[in-house]
């Protein structure tokens, strides 16, 4: 039960530990989301929202790193090639 969608924090509305809310942007819409579980998220950060609650911050550096690894994969530079060099594109 885990439909979690990344959205960008655009504005804090309330920083209360229980009632804390921020406006979060998903594509073309924004919605108020509850922020009790991500009290440190700042404007501009991405958070994963599930059932109206931000459940975690997105670690942009990690995402970047993953994508870079993938870029390497796509270029066929990864060390995994040795499994089947013949098939390298």
């Amino acid at each position, binding site marked *: *039960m885990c439909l979690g969608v990344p959205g960008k924090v655009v504005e804090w509305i309330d920083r209360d530990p229980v009632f804390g809310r921020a406006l979060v942007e998903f594509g073309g819409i924004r919605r108020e989301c509850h922020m009790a*579980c991500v009290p440190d998220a700042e404007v501009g950060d991405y958070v994963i929202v599930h059932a109206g609650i931000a*459940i975690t911050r997105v670690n942009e550096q990690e995402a970047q790193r993953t994508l870079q690894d*993938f870029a390497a994969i796509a270029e066929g530079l990864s060390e*995994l090639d040795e499994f089947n060099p013949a*098939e390298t594109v």
Partner: protein
Amino acid sequence: MKFIDEFRDPVLATELVRRIRATAKQPWVLMEVCGGQTHSLLRHGIDVELQGAVELIHGPGCPVCVTDISAIDLAQQLASLPGVVLASFGDMLRVPGSQGSLLTARATGGDVMMVYSPVDAVRHAQSHPDQQVVFFAVGFETTAPATALAVLQAHQLGLTNFSVLVSHVRVQPAMEALMQAPDNRVEGFLAAGHVCSITGYDSYDSFAKRHRVPVIVTGFEPVDLLQGILECVTQLETGTAEVRNSYGRSVERLGNPAAQRVVDTVYEIDDRAWRGFGVIPAGGYRLREEYATFDAQRRFGLTRSAEKNDPTDTKRCRAGDVLSGRLKPCDCPEFGKACTPDSPLGAPMVSSEGACAAYFRYHRGSLT
């Protein structure tokens, strides 16, 4: 959308498929634990792309499907009490209990409200003091912080017209139960990414060691899923069985402590009956005594009847076999015949993320 579109990149995905095929020297049997992963795998046809290299078993990860029938019956009873509004997630509305679903309850005069967030139900209670609002709290560890937060808010607001019917389930005990089944076929796990966002993945270390299975924390987009599968297959080919995080952008080793605090404040671990599985030790949450005033069952003096006749025919439905990977949904004799999403025989056919329903939706064509 950022952090979605990059991870649906066709070039990367195609390349990852090629790598998985090149790496797998034998067809490995992996289980994706979360229903959201099942949905995404089938929606993008990843299972078909990997045919022959990897067999994907759709795990128990659809909390709507595993919600016990007695809980649904209670929810229905609550909805029909005068002055009570039952608030629920949309997915739960179609799942049949022993007397039909919550949509049936609504059609017969029950007050059922669909909400996107449990916190919205608290707001509704606040602005409708004349109504008793009951939130049907289902879901995995991912959803528990949301419902726990709703209880905390209601508590601070001093609301006496908000309560919850708790039927939360916990994933790891179910994985444990699966591995202990004598004819288990699962050789590697794709752990549920957003569950791990909350809980972290520290606790999987001993699980992976004990059962000698790789556990890969995996996300939900095609590239995430393929990355998780590649990692898992690589481990299997090299004979390792470790816990790896393939969903680093959303999961930390220790999870989200703030979210865990919210959950721990309100809930404690409890045994829980899973539909299609039976009672799983430590398989769910219940409200702590301090928050017992928010327990809908107590407030309305209802008892869970253990023995309700399941409308889903337990003799014909092979849900246990499907959810534990012993049987592919399409190999169930009832699949697509007596059992369809419109008239499900078993829990896995009821929600669109259930293993049988997902199969029905995406594979009926290629199978008939």
